[in-house]
């Protein structure tokens, strides 16, 4: 293969319509006769619904229909969970419109259908719902005690307990012996605060029921999964539903789900026989879209006195919120294989308890399990370094897998195919100026500078390319992890690529064009990438888990290879040569040892006309491929943060952020760097800014962008990014995945840096987000308890 496109910083094909306002987001769609929906939502976090009076709403101007849970009880079914992590996993029924009981504030109790969005919202106020309030349980640790139940239909808040034990799995030693014989034992509890994905485009749905096949446009990451779930839940033949994800304004895991509003919009449209649109407000999005993280992590790390880790024990409480979302139960389990990170721990155990509370349900948020794991272990490695008086980088290097030791089977049972932690770290140190910053840190401490300096380290890895289907099967996930592609050769020789990996900002159209341009030897401009519509792209498992290139991209390449093999037969026929003598390079088939050649475009037309093809040749070059990965890929990197902490105000400033990521072979460095930047922003946001806060009654306090602090431009620094390139050996391109790396790595780097700045003042831990008030309070508490040296 001649490579002129892979590795090239191609500007994106996606941009032209987005920078000129010709966007196709779902809320931009208007259909003839379209009606508008608004939701009546519960103000209570837990209550019995005693009556719903819709009379006044029904007679409100412009209102066409009002739907209650009772109205749709027979048809709505229950939103499914497709990841029962244990055979005895418990879950309450999850109706799209609550019928008897609500379990979080924001749950839908009725739906208005009206001629305009304004008329629908006016009528929301006129629905009279009577509630009998029930006790709420908001705190995760309290919920685990079962003193208050989140659902009256369940006898416990515990959904499932999942355990991995390296001793039992045969992947390592038993943890008990390691802890019992520890020379040094570090025990810590960390709190992963609740976060909100906060994609910029509020979720929006349009349903057109006016033909035999119902069409749904949805702001979703997963149109293929959505179509299947709609069919299974509502009893519609799958072939009678078409789902389109048009332009989608970000997802970050928040649109990796199916939502009540999708079912409600479909049911409403079907009932009134007219196209219906629902677009949530930002407040509804924050309140009733799924949230992320929300775990308590209790950790024990055993080590020798010279800093060799001998075991890690993890006990998790994971907040499911009020219901099990599509895959919410499995999110902590995705992290379970990553707590050992880049290290050679001999013993490991993880116990995860999934717990219900009266909050919005949780699900995937960028990184999904892996940021939690990485934060925990990278914080613990710093704690161990402090305990032993060792440099935190030296401690990490003592324990990490050396580059000559790959492939390496970890204590969690994964085989890491490749990596070079030494190279990434060396490059990061050089760009960072580690020694000079350490010297400055000493000076500031000695002079009692009110602004103290800390250095935060995170050496991370993650599992990407979700996922080998057999692994998902072993983890009781209901579907596989393959991806599908089709390459169509048009009569003119132009190429259409159909991908099942439906993007929402990642730049697939550009990157897939580069892949196919190289493989088929056609101009980048002559490749068109189609996606996000179950009619044009009938098979797919969509975009999440940094899977698109390493799974979807491989399917594209495999389909392109099939095109070449089909065209080779025709080329041999046209040039009257033996197939074995036909070579393909740069878009041309040539007869070995001669000047004779035929371009792919010529063959395309010959196949189209089909006048003179080999006997029995099916007149089409179009090819399908479905790729199921045999392993995950394992990007890694070293992130370093220089953090300034004003000890008088608690203000935290990122002075310098350096990251060196190894994501393997890069198709488009521009896109990769953009993914790193955005990932860093979200990881930093967890460390410093964002938290979904509820009051004791169960009301979301951070219910608008006034209170939920998505960082803006002045809140973030200029990042210094660089790469090393250790190719993955488990896919033909050597690519790894980059969508989540920055988010996974940056949170512990920032918090480690903040703590490193103030640890000498007696501060031992600060809960995220490390806001000025939290940092200031921690400093004051340290003073009170005599922590100041």
């Amino acid at each position: 293969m001649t490579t002129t496109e892979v590795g090239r910083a191609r500007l994106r094909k996606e941009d032209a319509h987005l920078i000129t306002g010709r966007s196709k987001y779902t809320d931009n769609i208007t259909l003839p006769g379209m009606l508008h929906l608004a939701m009546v939502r519960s103000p209570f976090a837990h209550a019995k619904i005693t009556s719903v009076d819709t009379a006044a709403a029904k007679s409100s101007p412009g209102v066409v229909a009002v739907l209650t849970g009772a109205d749709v009880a027979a048809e709505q079914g229950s939103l499914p969970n497709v990841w029962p992590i244990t055979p005895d996993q418990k879950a309450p029924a999850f109706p799209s419109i609550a019928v008897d009981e609500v379990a979080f504030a924001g749950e839908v109790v009725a739906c208005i259908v009206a001629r305009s969005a304004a008329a629908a919202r006016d009528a929301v106020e006129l629905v009279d719902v009577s509630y009998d309030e029930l006790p709420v349980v908001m705190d995760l640790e309290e919920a685990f005690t079962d003193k208050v139940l989140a659902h009256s239909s369940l006898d416990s808040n515990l959904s499932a307990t999942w355990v991995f034990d390296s001793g039992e799995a045969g992947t390592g030693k038993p943890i008990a012996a390691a802890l019992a014989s520890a020379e040094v034992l570090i025990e810590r509890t960390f709190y992963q605060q609740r976060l909100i994905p906060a994609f910029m485009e509020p979720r929006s749905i349009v349903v057109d029921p006016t033909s035999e096949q119902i069409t749904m446009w949805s702001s979703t990451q997963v149109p293929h999964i959505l179509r299947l779930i709609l069919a299974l839940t509502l009893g519609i033949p799958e072939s009678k539903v078409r789902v389109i994800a048009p332009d989608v304004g970000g997802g970050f895991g928040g649109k990796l789900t199916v939502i009540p509003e999708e079912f409600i919009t479909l049911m409403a449209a079907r009932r009134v026989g007219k196209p219906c649109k629902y677009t949530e407000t930002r407040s509804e999005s924050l309140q009733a879209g799924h949230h992320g993280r929300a775990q308590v992590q209790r950790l024990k790390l055993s080590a020798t006195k010279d800093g060799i880790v001998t075991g890690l024990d993890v006990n998790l409480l994971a907040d499911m919120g009020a219901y099990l979302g599509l895959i919410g139960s499995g999110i902590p389990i995705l992290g379970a294989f990553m707590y050992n990170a880049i290290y050679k721990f001999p013993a490991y155990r993880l116990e995860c308890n999934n717990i219900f509370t009266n909050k919005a349900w949780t699900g995937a948020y960028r990184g999904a399990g892996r940021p939690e794991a990485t934060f925990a272990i990278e914080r613990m490695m710093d704690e161990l370094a402090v305990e032993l008086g060792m440099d935190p980088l030296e401690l990490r290097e003592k324990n990490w897998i050396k580059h000559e030791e790959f492939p390496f089977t970890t204590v969690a049972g994964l085989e890491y195919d490749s990596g070079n932690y030494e190279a990434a770290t060396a490059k990061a140190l050089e760009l960072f100026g580690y020694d000079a910053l350490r010297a400055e840190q000493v000076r500031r401490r000695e002079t009692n500078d009110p602004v103290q300096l800390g250095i935060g380290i995170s050496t991370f890895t993650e599992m990407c390319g979700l996922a080998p289907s057999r692994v998902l099967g072993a983890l009781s996930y209901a579907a596989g992890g393959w991806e599908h592609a089709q390459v169509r050769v048009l009569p003119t020789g132009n190429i259409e690529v159909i991908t099942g990996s439906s993007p929402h900002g990642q730049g697939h159209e550009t990157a897939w064009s580069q892949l196919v341009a190289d493989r088929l030897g056609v101009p980048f401009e002559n490749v068109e990438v189609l996606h996000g519509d179950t009619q044009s792209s009938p098979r797919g498992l969509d975009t999440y888990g940094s899977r698109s290139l390493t799974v979807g991209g491989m399917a594209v390449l495999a389909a392109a290879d099939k095109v070449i093999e089909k065209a080779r037969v025709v080329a041999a026929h046209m040039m009257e040569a033996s197939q074995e003598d036909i070579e393909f390079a740069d878009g041309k088939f040539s007869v070995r040892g001669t000047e004779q050649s035929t371009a792919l475009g010529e063959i395309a037309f010959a196949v189209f006309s089909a006048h003179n093809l080999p006997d029995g040749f099916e007149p089409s070059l179009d090819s399908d491929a479905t790729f199921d990965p045999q392993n995950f890929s394992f990007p890694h990197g070293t992130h370093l943060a220089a953090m300034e902490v004003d000890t008088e105000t608690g203000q935290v400033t990122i002075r310098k952020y350096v990251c060196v990521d190894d994501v393997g072979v890069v198709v488009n460095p521009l896109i990769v760097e953009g993914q790193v930047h955005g990932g860093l922003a979200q990881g930093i946001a967890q460390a410093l800014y964002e938290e979904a806060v509820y009051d004791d009654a169960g009301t979301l306090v951070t219910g608008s962008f006034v209170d939920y602090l998505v960082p803006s431009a002045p809140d973030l620094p200029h990042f210094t990014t660089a790469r090393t390139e250790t190719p993955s050996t488990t896919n033909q391109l050597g690519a790894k995945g980059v969508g989540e790396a920055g988010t996974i790595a940056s949170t512990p780097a920032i918090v480690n840096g903040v703590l490193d700045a103030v640890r000498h003042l007696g501060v031992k831990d600060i809960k995220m987000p490390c806001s000025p008030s939290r940092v200031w309070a921690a400093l004051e508490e340290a003073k009170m308890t005599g922590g100041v040296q």
Partner: protein
Amino acid sequence: MASSKTITVEVDDVSYTDDVEPRLLLVQYLRERLGKTGTLIGCDTTNCGACTVHLDGASVKSCTMFAVQADGHSVTTIEGLARDGKLAPLQQAFHQCHALQCGFCTPGMIMQSASLLDENPHPTEQEIRDGLEGNLCRCTGYQNIVAAVQAAADGTVSLDGTVSSDSEAETAGVA
């Protein structure tokens, strides 16, 4: 419902006269009445800036104004920024610097950037960041947005749509 009021607004060089409810927001008027769906709605509280347009040349968040307040004024949206079929330098700069991913914040971000450069044609990096404080982006981490505004200010945007070999090499740098 209050009685409607007649307004005349020039939007992207076209004059419109319409009867509107007094409570209709400018952004709703643009999107629902005029079909100017290039301007987007991202929040209810004037925090995200996705709906930013220009009113008589200065940036405003069109979710914070009633349509009736635009009566007699001139509005420019993202759809009116390109002239004679050519992208405005900021639009080209956002493309060239990979300053957008999902694109949802982009119209507002470009309109705010235009206003920023109008007030301060040669901003520092910090001035750009401060000037964009009212516009949220969840995808880019802002670094490439800042670079795009800087490029537009410095006049280093290539208006023929090509990327210079220098910038390609810079982003491709792997040791």
